[in-house]
């Protein structure tokens, strides 16, 4: 109970320190900012230990037998080689594990983009032009893609489609802005709720 009270006051102090930035930059805000960076960095180390090194390497090494056990030395070595980036003389060695991770990422990305995005999305655009919504959807997709085609000068029908494209893009950005406003305000509502409910007990 007492820890709860101390914690709430600590949280409220830090919240108000960050909010003080709205008036102007000040030492309290800077202090809170540095605490945040330090604590987050510490958190990441604990996470890497608790959720990666311990269960995936150490516990596995202890529980597995035979080849499954000893083969874990390879990712362990690659992981340690990644840390050679800290030292300028040996930083080139980190290219090896980096190449491994980038190769995996690129290989996964190619197939995922085609199977998981391009084909279904293009398929969903192949609609019968039987109602105005379908017509607008098809024209919208085509004109937006044409807008970003910079290999040819915009003349004639290309110019018309690119103009249509910018209209669709502006409507999309307006809608995204509306949603973004909603998102940002929600975050403020959350903090104000904490101050009014948890700290002051008004609501």
């Amino acid at each position, binding site marked *: 109970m007492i*820890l709860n009270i101390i914690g*709430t006051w600590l949280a409220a102090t*830090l919240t108000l320190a960050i909010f003080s930035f709205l008036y102007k930059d000040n030492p309290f805000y*800077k*202090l809170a900012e*540095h*605490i945040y960076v*330090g604590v*987050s*960095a*510490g*958190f*990441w*180390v604990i996470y*890497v230990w*608790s959720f*990666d*090194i311990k269960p*995936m390497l150490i516990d596995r090494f202890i529980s597995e037998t035979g080849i499954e056990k000893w083969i874990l030395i390879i990712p362990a070595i690659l*992981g340690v080689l990644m*840390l050679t980036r800290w030292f300028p003389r040996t930083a080139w060695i980190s290219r*090896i594990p*980096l*190449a*491994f*991770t980038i*190769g*995996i*990422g*690129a*290989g996964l990305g*190619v*197939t995922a*983009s085609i*199977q998981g*995005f*391009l084909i279904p*999305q*293009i398929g969903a*655009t192949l609609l019968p032009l039987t109602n105005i*919504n379908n017509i607008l959807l098809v024209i*919208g*997709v085509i*004109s*937006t893609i044409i*807008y*970003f085609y910079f290999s040819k000068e915009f003349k004639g029908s290309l110019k018309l489609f690119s103009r249509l*494209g910018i209209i669709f*893009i*502006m409507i999309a950005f*307006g*809608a995204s*802005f509306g949603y*973004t*406003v*909603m998102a940002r*305000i929600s*975050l403020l509502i*959350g*903090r104000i709720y904490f101050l009014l409910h948890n700290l002051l007990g008004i609501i």
Partner: protein
Amino acid sequence: MIRHQLPLIITFFTGMLLIITFFIPHKPFGDLEQRFLIWYSIISGFTVLLGLDSLVRYHLSKLKKEFNIHSFILILSLFLTLILGFYSWFKFKTPFALNSPFMFLYTYVIIPLQATMFALLAFFIASAAYRAFRARTFEATLLLIAATVVMLGRVPIGGYISKGIAYFISFLFKIPYEKISEIQIFAIVSDWIMNIPQNAAKRGIFIGTALGGIAMSIRIILGIERTYITK
């Protein structure tokens, strides 16, 4: 050879293996893919630690030159978190036990700091809306109209405003109010904007970025793109 060619060979091998395994998921490709994915997960954890070194080094060097309270607080916070984390791990078998000191730090330090940092954006967006959003051109006007309709359509107050508009229309055109009072015009138009023009434009944009991403991935696998091994 080792410094420049070996990383390219590894990238090519791993990238191609994953693409081949997509088409031939049977042994040995499927098993090798699974093993490589597990290794990727393990190595990604070490990548996280890379950023830590530059952070600690920078602030320690600042402290060596002259005492800086902010750098001191940062290093202190970092080590305090590590101590609490490992202590919680020893005592509670996991640092994420809800009654552990580590979770106290998370609940009363991380959450308020992180949440408030982003809550500041609400004020900045209000200020930006006032200062910067100008209907200078036809396209900008379109953007603002779409934003207004979506902002009103997504919240309950849009329903009340729609009722007001319905009352005004019923008065002007002598239409019975009961017939049109339930039509939430902002919500309906907002839903239409999200499902049709917004959908179309976003799909077009993402098709473009997906094609670019595929091209970049293939360039990386084939060794044409080498920027990741320049250091």
